């Protein structure tokens, strides 16, 4: 579990943060470079099968170039202990899987955030902020961004909840010692008890994430607060 959470969980959070930021900027500079080039590219990459991208990454960076390790959570010879060498080794092993997840996951966030921001920018309160003569970055963050991100929170929570299931293929390709890998092992060994247990775990994770999203929405959107 810590392996999956560490790798896929953190990557999902990064994908959301970076994607949201790029989407916001792209919509803010409408017609600019980011806005013109990125959306079509990410429409296409979001349709990539990421396990295949993982295969390609392994082929290019570990087999052909030999820069990064191709599988496992850490090296066979490394001792599992709290040491710098172990940490560095874990990090090195996580680069390829992390990057493949990031590349395929980020596109969706860029596109939705861009589209949300575009509709929010046409709202009267953004125009009002302009009329007030606020600094552009202030309008972008507290007026446009803050409101545009609200519809994305539930989606983000769902994706966090699906971290485990999304990890299955990546962990399979990289032989990464996480929950997804364990799940596939249980399927292969017809270990139904383990299979059901893991499935329950995955479902609970989704529900917890949605709960967290509701809490975040209440914090960020005052309109949802007082329904007494």
């Amino acid at each position, binding site marked *: 579990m810590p392996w999956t959470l560490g790798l896929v969980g953190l990557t999902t959070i990064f994908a959301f943060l970076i994607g949201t930021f790029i989407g916001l900027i792209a919509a803010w500079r409408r017609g600019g470079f980011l806005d013109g080039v990125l959306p079509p590219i990410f429409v296409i990459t979001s*349709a990539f099968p990421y396990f295949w991208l993982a295969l390609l990454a392994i082929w290019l960076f570990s087999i052909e170039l030999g820069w990064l390790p191709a599988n496992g959570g850490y090296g066979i010879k490394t001792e599992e202990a709290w040491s710098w060498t172990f940490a560095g080794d874990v990090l090195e092993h996580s680069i390829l899987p992390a990057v493949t997840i990031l590349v395929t996951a980020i596109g969706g966030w860029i596109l939705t955030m861009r589209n949300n921001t575009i509709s929010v920018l046409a709202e009267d309160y953004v125009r009002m902020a302009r009329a007030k*003569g606020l600094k552009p970055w202030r309008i972008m963050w507290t007026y446009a961004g803050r*409101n545009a991100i609200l519809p994305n929170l539930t989606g983000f929570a769902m994706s966090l909840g699906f971290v485990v299931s999304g990890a299955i*293929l990546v962990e399979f390709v990289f032989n990464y010692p996480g929950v997804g890998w364990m799940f596939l092992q249980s*399927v292969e060994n*017809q270990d139904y008890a383990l*299979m059901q247990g893991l499935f329950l775990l*995955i479902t609970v994770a989704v529900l917890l994430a949605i709960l967290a999203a509701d809490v975040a929405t209440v914090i960020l959107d005052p309109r949802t607060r007082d329904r007494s």
Partner: protein
Amino acid sequence: MTVTSGAVAAGAPGPGGFEHVVAETRRGFGRDLVRAVARNRKAMAGVVLLAFFLVLTLFPGEIAPHDPMASIFQPGLGPSREHWLGTTSYGQDILSQLIWGTRQSVIIAFAVGGLATAIAVLVGVSAGYLGGASDGFLSLVTDVILVIPIFPLIIVITAYEKSSGLTTLVIVLGALGWSYGARQLRAQTLSLRTRDFLEAARVRGERRSYVILYEILPTMTSLIVASFLGAAVFAVLFAAGLQFIGLGDPNAQSWGTMLYWAENNEALGAGMPLWAIAPGVCVALLGAAFALLNYAFDEISNPALRLRRLDRPPDVEPRDAAASGEPPDPDRVLQVRGLSVAYTSDEGAVVAVDNVDLDLGRGEFLAVVGESGCGKSTLVYAIARLLGPPFSGEIIGGQIMFQGRDMVTLAERQLRHVRWREFSVVMQSAMNALNPVLTIAAQMRDACKAHSTMSDREIEERSREVLRLVSIDPIHLHSYPHQLSGGMRQRAMIAMALLFTPDLVIMDEPTSALDVVAQRSLMMQIKELQQRLGFAVVFVTHDMSLVSHFSDRLLVMYAGQVAEFGDTRRVFDTPRHPYTRALLEAFPSIRGPKTHLLGIPGSPPDLARPPSGCRFSPRCPVARPTCHATPPRLVEVESDLVRCVLYDDAALERDPVAAES
């Protein structure tokens, strides 16, 4: 007075905001769709890719060079003329396998897309249309399906079900992939349910099935297509993933299975990279075809996402600001000369404000009136320099002298320092104009921080003070906009506009969201504050009676032009322009004798194709032949302005018919 201008509503979204054009264009939607797809590059790319794969699906035998399963060649060959993509470890031709593999992915995509969309439409539309308990139940099912982790579930199902053929895959993916589409369709149905055309169908006594099939579904074409495309992408990727980890039929002809065998034989390490790369590229391309179409559809059905640039209309020449040569008058807060504004639309530029001049003295109250779509809001937003991206309006000519500066040429950076300190804006609906996630205090603080070095304590003090000015108890300072009543929100916005006691306050229908009683008390308050603090007001409204007692001068606009401009009392007592007269006849008088109320026949012209001659001539009761031919000049009559040939002696002389009468 409730007529909306076709030009502004259809092509160029006015300051009122963008509308999702979904329901209004029901008939001819199919034809428009084909045209829109042909224009959209992303859509075309998707169509071409999809067509390519469809051809491969239909005629694999004719296209593939070899039998895909026959292990008759030398294993592990690289690309050659005989085998373009090389051979597998089992001596099979990779290209042929690829071509035969297309069929399964395409079938899965369409079958799952179709099945999922059918369920989504059934569940979503029923839930939205029926409402009540059925809606509760169907929504619950949808949400449960939505949170089920589909991929692990499918793995478990296929693990139990030993023979996981194509049919199982389609049924499982279809049965689990519909929930997202159903949610959107339900939301759309809910919003359609109260629309007039559905009410009309119900009143006509149409059967429920008829209403759903012929009235609701056609308006949701774009959503249904989006749901289909989304499900198709999902199916292609999931099926490939399942087959890749060996949960499909290992003897099937599919891209996922090819990837499975390639991975098992370590094709990438063993010098057969194409074995693993090519099927992945195909999956990606098929997925991309659907994703591109989906994205393009989104753009087509939501015009806000499309970026349009203004092509300058050739007949409007940008007037050189410096050339007017008029020195700024120190008694005037605002001097507008030859201001023109255009919107972009599918049919080219639409000039919404055409060559408008106006003057505003210090502390003067100017009302701008006219029907919806006459350009009055556009005019004041142009003066406030609030057009431009993301709104499609753009100033195409003229000069706006405000306190000695030309606002048109002022850079945004310099403009920022003028804003709010010297002029502020009050918008139509405070509900939309106040940021919903910030308290009133925070929004006031924003403005103060941007323009002064006030301390937090001073800002708090000042905020309380302006709230008291508009008679709001300062305890509401730390409320969020949604916690206040409509009238209070509107007052709070006016309070905000007075933070720095500016010289000019621009008000765009600030009372139209209120009931008549609240309107009146707010107007009194605005007038009182204006007299006390001495700021000038430009007040936009479609309700002439509202401003009759409050404004000093009145600007009547028609179809983007000044129709009449003069002293308010004089205009009310002796209106000169036939349009002004018609407007006044449309209002009941409280004290005067009972008269017949007359509306204005016809509707405002389409600004994309303004009538030749006088723009009001098609609706004008006293129009004469010359009116339909030559556009009238704006003539000065006793220091007021009117755009009508009746007051233009020079033009009348040239017109024989007019001279007789």
